[in-house]
């Protein structure tokens, strides 16, 4: 069964450092998403990406964040100058059509710990 894969599974970083979270979406999917889940809280939308550009972003997704599809298979989330409150589980998702018209498949997540 096709799946979304994320690396690393756990990332520990010093406050102020930059981190890049990596995702390999399902191969024929065109829509890509990042969500995050602070421990014990709900899953929150960060950004959606289609046709090599951001299609929608939340108020959480400020200038500290950026996304990129550097090649045909990877989708990355970069967090510049990390803060303690960025500690969360980050989920990548992909879908073959816009959310709501096709199922969004989620990866297993990257746990980011900022110390």
């Amino acid at each position: 069964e096709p799946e979304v894969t994320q690396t690393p599974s756990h990332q520990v970083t010093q406050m102020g450092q930059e981190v890049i979270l990596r995702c390999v979406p399902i191969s024929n999917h065109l829509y890509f998403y990042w969500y995050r889940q602070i421990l014990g809280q709900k899953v929150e939308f960060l950004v959606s990406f289609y046709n090599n550009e951001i299609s929608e972003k939340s108020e959480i997704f400020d200038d500290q964040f950026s996304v990129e599809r550097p090649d045909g298979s990877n989708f990355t989330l970069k967090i510049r100058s990390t803060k303690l409150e960025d500690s969360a589980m980050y989920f990548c998702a992909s879908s073959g059509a816009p959310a709501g018209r096709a199922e969004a498949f989620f990866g297993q997540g990257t746990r980011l710990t900022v110390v």
Partner: protein
Amino acid sequence: QQQVKQSPQSLIVQKGGISIINCAYENTAFDYFPWYQQFPGKGPALLIAIRPDVSEKKEGRFTISFNKSAKQFSLHIMDSQPGDSATYFCAARSTGTYKYIFGTGTRLKVLA
């Protein structure tokens, strides 16, 4: 108005019982309502979804009941099994957007 309110926060059910999780929303532009199941250390996985033109959808032991006038929808798990023990999230998507708004989650434990 973009919120989806979910209850209860946690639920304990005996094996074979019915698990019921409720969600409510305010935004009438929501047009797609999925339920996700999440096991520890895993990402959310789509369980079942419904659109507001349907009042009920059933897939195996899982049923969504949808009340458009009350802006409420619920997940019913019939014959609950220990393997159903997980966190369940309701979600909603607004017309013309790409994002899901998730509820706060319900941690279900089914006792053997």
